[in-house]
C-alpha cells in the first residue's frame, strides 16, 4: 500500500463518519455506554477482590502453649510450615489485658490482673491457599502445644466465600465483557448494513476487497476509540465522585484509589473498543463484499 493510499483511507474513514453524522453519533454513544458498563463492572469487581484479599489477611489460628513451651523455637518452626504467613507471640499478660479491656467488664479485668488463668499463645496469620486440616495436624504435633484453636467453621466459610466471590466476579467480568463486545460489534454491523449498497457500488467500480475494507475498518476503529475515550473519561470522573462520596460518608470502606484503577480501566476499555470496532467492521463487511 502506498502512503498516499493510506492517507486516502484515513480521509475516507473520517469523511465517512462525518457524512453519516447522525448514525456515527448514535453508534459512538452506544459504544460509549457499553464500555461504561464494562468499566464499571471492572471497578466493582477489582474493589470486591481487593476487599476480600484484605479480609483474608484477618484470618488467624490461635495456638495455646503449655507452661514450659519454648515459644521462640516454636515460632521459627511454625514459620517454615506451608500456609503460615506470619506468627505473633502473645503472652498471657497481654492476653488478659486485651480480654479484660475488650469485654469491658471491670470485675473480670480486676480478677484477671490479680490471678491470670490464661495461657501464653501464638497467633498465626494464614496464607491464602492454606490447607487448614493439614496445618492444624502439624501444629498439634509440635512439642509444648496445649491446644490449636481456629474457629474452624468461620475460617473455612470465609475462605469459601472468598473463593466463590472471586469466581463469580471473574465470570461476571468475562460475561459482561463478551456482552459488551457483542453489542459493539452489532452496533457497527448496523451502521455497515445501512451502507451495504455503497459497498456493492465500490466493488462494481473495481475496488478490491481491501480497498473497501480499510476505510470501513478505520471507521470502526475510530468509532471504538471515540467510545473508549468517552467511556474512560466518564467512568474515571464517576469513580472520582464515588470515592469522594464514600470518603466523606464512610471513610473506613477501603475503596481502591483512582490511580490503582485507571490504568487497567484505560487498557481494558481502549483495547475492547478499538479491537472490536475493527473486528465488527471486518465481520460485517464480509457479507457485502461478495459482488
Amino acid at each position: 500500500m502506498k502512503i498516499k493510499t493510506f492517507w486516502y483511507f484515513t480521509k475516507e474513514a473520517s469523511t465517512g463518519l462525518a457524512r453519516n453524522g447522525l448514525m456515527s453519533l448514535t453508534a459512538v454513544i452506544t459504544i460509549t455506554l457499553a464500555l461504561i458498563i464494562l468499566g464499571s463492572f471492572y471497578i466493582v469487581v477489582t474493589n470486591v477482590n481487593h476487599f476480600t484479599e484484605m479480609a483474608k489477611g484477618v484470618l488467624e489460628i490461635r495456638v495455646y502453649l503449655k507452661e514450659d513451651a519454648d515459644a521462640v523455637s516454636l515460632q521459627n518452626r511454625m514459620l517454615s510450615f506451608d500456609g503460615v504467613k506470619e506468627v505473633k507471640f502473645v503472652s498471657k499478660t497481654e492476653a488478659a489485658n486485651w480480654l479484660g479491656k475488650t469485654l469491658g467488664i471491670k470485675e473480670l479485668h480486676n480478677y484477671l490482673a490479680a490471678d491470670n488463668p490464661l495461657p501464653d499463645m501464638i497467633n498465626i496469620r494464614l496464607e491464602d491457599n492454606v490447607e487448614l486440616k493439614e496445618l492444624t495436624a502439624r501444629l498439634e504435633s509440635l512439642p509444648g502445644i496445649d491446644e490449636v484453636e481456629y474457629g474452624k467453621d468461620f475460617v473455612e466459610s470465609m475462605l469459601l466465600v472468598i473463593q466463590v466471590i472471586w469466581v463469580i466476579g471473574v465470570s461476571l467480568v468475562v460475561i459482561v465483557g463478551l456482552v459488551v463486545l457483542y453489542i459493539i460489534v452489532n452496533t457497527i454491523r448496523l451502521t455497515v448494513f445501512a451502507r451495504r449498497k455503497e459497498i456493492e457500488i465500490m466493488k462494481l467500480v473495481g475496488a478490491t476487497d481491501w480497498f473497501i475494507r480499510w476505510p470501513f475498518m478505520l471507521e470502526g476503529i475510530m468509532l471504538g476509540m471515540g467510545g473508549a475515550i468517552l467511556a474512560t473519561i466518564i467512568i474515571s470522573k464517576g469513580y472520582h465522585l464515588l470515592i469522594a462520596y464514600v470518603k466523606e460518608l464512610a471513610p473506613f470502606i477501603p475503596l481502591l484509589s483512582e490511580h490503582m484503577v485507571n490504568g487497567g480501566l484505560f487498557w481494558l476499555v481502549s483495547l475492547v473498543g478499538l479491537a472490536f470496532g475493527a473486528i465488527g467492521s471486518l465481520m460485517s463487511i464480509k457479507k457485502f463484499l461478495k459482488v
Partner: protein
Amino acid sequence: MIGVIWVIQFQGVSKIYSNGVAALHDINIHIEKGEFAFLVGPSGAGKSTFMKLIIRKELPTSGQVLVGHKNLAKMKAGEVSLLRRNIGFIFQDFKLLPHKTVFENVSFALEVIEASKKDINRQVPAVLELVGLKDKANIFPSELSGGEQQRVSLARAIVNRPHLLLADEPTGNLDPETSWGLMDLLLEINKRGTTVIMSTHNKNIVDKLRRRVIALDSGRMIRDEQKGGYGFEN
C-alpha cells in the same frame, strides 16, 4: 490487463435468476475490440442482464462469457477487480455513491487504481467539464436532477480511459440535445480504440448512427446486424 485483447465472447449463455426468471437464453455472440454495438429490445428483454454478465455482477447459469479469452466464471476476486477497473459502466440506475460528492464519485474510479493526486486533479475536472457538470463538482448526487446524475455516471465511466465501455440506457434521462452530445463523446472514445456497447431505447439515435445492432427479445437474440436500425416497428 493492459495488453489483453478486449474481445467479448458469449458462448451458449443462458441466465436464469434465482427467482426462476429466464433473462437470457442461449446467447452466442462475438464483439471485437474497437467495435461499437447497440443493444436493443423491449423492456425486460435481457439487455441489462447481458451487460451485468460482462462485468461479472452476475454469472451465467449455463454457457460461458469470455473477456479477452478469459472465462469470467473462473476468475479470482483480484482478477475481477482488475477487469472492472478496465471497464467503464454507465448503470441504468446510475449507482452513484450517496455520501460522496460529484467530484469524489468520479475520482473514486481513479482512487481504486491508486492514481496520483496530480492525475486526479487534472482528469476529474476535465471530464466533469466534458459532461457539463463543472459547477456541480462539490454537491451530492441527491442534489442533482435525473439527467445530471446520469452524466455523473458517464463521467465516472470514462475518467480512467477504460478499454471497454458499457452504457446501459445512457440517454434515458437526457433531452435530445444532451443525448447527442453524449453520443458524440461515445463515438469519440470509440474512435480512440475503446470498445463500446450501449443498450438503448432511443430509436432516433440507432437509426441515424447505423452501427452494429444486437436485438434481444424475451432473452433470445433475434437479430445481429452490422449498420442496423432500431427495428421493432409495428
